[in-house]
């Protein structure tokens, strides 16, 4: 990258750090709701405000002193029913940088009494009087259920195949920083859309912000009636990537590879794995994203994933912390 352009970008960011935004708990509210359960229900204005706020935190995170006091005295509980190193640590870091007390809880569920246990867990947690609860659960709708049972703000960190709003927001932030906006932008989301909450949140967010969204997958991994989302549907990757500015790869879960949805990993890679040749079908300056963790040689080739000129994967992780700080900040304001 042109060093002068980089310098200019950083100058620009420094100007956009607004101490008032970061420290004033009575600043204008950003979110109407007390919870962030999904992209559905957010307005373009709310998304833009969250991204703007996250920009300031992205800049803060690059400064030597990364601490802010927005959540001083508040308690944040990370409740993860599914293992997730990167999302959990991202939320933990976000909370700590904003000055909150962060408690991580990893829960192993008994499958028999799942629903009951979740509500019991909610009651127990509620008694501890947290200010915010970040929850990941393997069942769609779990975050919504908790939000009705708890007095605190609930952030959905992924529920079943429903939504993963902070992932979509961090993807949007990454895209906006590179491309300036979403209009006239074509984003191809490729892979296991059927089981992906990341895809659902991204479809909602990117469509709402004006991007053209396409889904590229074998029919076994495309949800029925996916076209009702207002997106283009492609089963041929060459067609689907033609003219794409952003190629967003999805993780193929190991248990999906055993033959029920696709016959083998080698066949999947042959037709849907992003390698140099397939990337060549997209626009010349197309960028590659992946929510992680990657299956190298299944949905993405290493030389593409590791190429800093095209891969935004590390930047996505960086923006993840910034966006989660923005979300926690925004929710705290509503509770001030």
């Amino acid at each position: 990258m042109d060093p002068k352009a980089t310098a200019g970008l950083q100058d620009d960011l420094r100007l956009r750090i607004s101490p008032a935004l970061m420290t004033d708990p009575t600043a204008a509210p950003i979110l109407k709701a007390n919870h962030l359960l999904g992209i559905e229900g957010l307005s373009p204005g709310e998304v833009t405000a969250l991204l703007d706020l996250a920009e300031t935190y992205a800049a803060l995170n690059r400064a030597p002193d990364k601490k802010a006091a927005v959540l001083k005295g508040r308690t944040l509980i990370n409740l993860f029913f599914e293992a997730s190193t990167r999302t959990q640590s991202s939320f933990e870091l976000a909370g700590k940088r904003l000055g909150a007390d962060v408690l991580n809880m990893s829960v192993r569920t008994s499958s028999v009494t799942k629903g009951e246990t979740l509500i019991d867990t909610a009651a127990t947690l509620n008694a501890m009087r947290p200010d915010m609860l970040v929850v990941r659960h393997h069942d769609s709708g779990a975050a919504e259920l908790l939000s009705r049972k708890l007095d605190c703000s609930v952030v959905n960190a992924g529920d079943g195949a429903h939504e993963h709003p902070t992932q979509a927001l961090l993807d949007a932030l990454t895209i906006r920083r590179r491309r300036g906006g979403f209009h006239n932008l074509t984003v191809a989301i490729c892979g296991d859309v059927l089981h992906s909450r990341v895809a659902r949140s991204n479809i909602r967010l990117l469509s709402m912000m004006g991007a053209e969204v396409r889904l590229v997958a074998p029919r076994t991994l495309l949800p029925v009636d996916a076209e009702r989302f207002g997106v283009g549907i492609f089963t041929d990757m060459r067609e689907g990537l033609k003219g794409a500015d952003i190629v967003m790869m999805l993780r193929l879960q190991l248990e999906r590879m055993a033959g029920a949805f696709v016959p083998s990993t080698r066949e999947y890679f042959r037709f849907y794995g992003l390698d140099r040749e397939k990337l060549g079908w997209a626009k010349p300056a197309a960028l590659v994203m992946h929510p992680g963790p990657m299956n190298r040689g299944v949905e993405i080739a290493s030389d593409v994933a590791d190429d800093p000129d095209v891969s935004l994967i590390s930047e996505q992780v960086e923006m993840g912390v910034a966006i989660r700080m923005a979300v926690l900040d925004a929710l705290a304001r509503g509770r001030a």
Partner: protein
Amino acid sequence: MTKRLFFRDARLVDPASGLDVKGALLVEHGRIADLGPNLSAPEDAEIVDCRGLVLAPGLVDGRVFTGEPGSEHRETLASASEAAAAGGVTTIVTMPVTDPVIDAPSLVDFLRRRAAATAKVRVAPAAALTKGLAGETMTEIGLLKEAGAVAFTDGDRTVGNARVMRRALAYAATFGALVVGHAEDPDLTDGAAMTEGEFATRLGLPAAPALAEAIIVERDIRLVELTGARYHFGQISTRASLDAIAAAKRRGLPVTCGVSAHHLMLNELDVGPYYPFRKVKPPLRSEDDRAAMVEGVASDVIDVIVSSHEPQGADTKRQPFAAAAFGTVGLETLLPAALALYHEGHAPLAHVLKTLTAAPARIFGLDAGRLAKGAPADLTLIDVDAPFVLDERTLHSRARNTAFDGRKFQGRAKMTFVGGERVF
């Protein structure tokens, strides 16, 4: 170097274009160079005098079981191709029911090389739809198609699990691949030797209701509607199936179907005194169902006629009826049996030939089945009227388990050419 062949005094019948004229046809470089009524022979061409007989595109048989690999004592690609050539068949679509099952790209490659080295006619391999024909997980349809598989089928087995079938169809649709289904509910037909009814009861044979076929036909039509897959019923045998497919076609679904020559000519009574060579899969049906198959061909609901050639040895066929294997050989009786529809006035000659040439070529996506400039010179010279009595000892197939031994036929192939080379 280049041998030119000139077919003179032929009745050229090309069902694809509707051509039916007296004329001649010139072959160059293994392809049809020219054809028509006013064609004169080039000086250096070798002349084939057709003596007014029908010169038609070589037949395409969409359903052939061989024993290679794994059961070469029953049939090899070479021996099947001898039988095909003798029956006027120039392309066979082989079923993947072999040992090993054709469910990996390397096996498709093996079959194609083996066919190129040993077979007299063209071999278009179908690959398995599910791994090991087990009906549980789909095969590598994309890679198999790239390797040259023309269709995906579990042969004479039905995928009993509707969820597996749904996903296999959806996955096949991704690649525009053709799925060939076999319609017999596996639970209803488990252990059955013939069609349930009075005759089976009198014989005391284990039997399954004929509706076991329509149940799967209707299920798979619904799944086609859901998934958009191209679907061909390899062979149907009942009126209920025919009605369901006719309705699906009227709704514009991408569904086609075939019928075997023996289901056009024989009914359940032909099982006679426990005659194991007439134990076939699906089993022979009632006379009403047989008549429905003839009507189905005439009305174009049934697209193709196939031999469903299934060689069996004495080890598997010379058994008590219930214990005997299913199947009849059929490559050499496909054309004579189909011509019976013409002789009995059910369908015009060109229509019968279409079900054996242009229609299967279109369904399986083969460059075959037509008389046209530039098309491969796969040709069959047919004496439409020649009467004969089938004698199993004259069959070219390595297996002799024909359901038609002693049957009187009218019409047969006189010469067969593949790529301009005479193979029979």
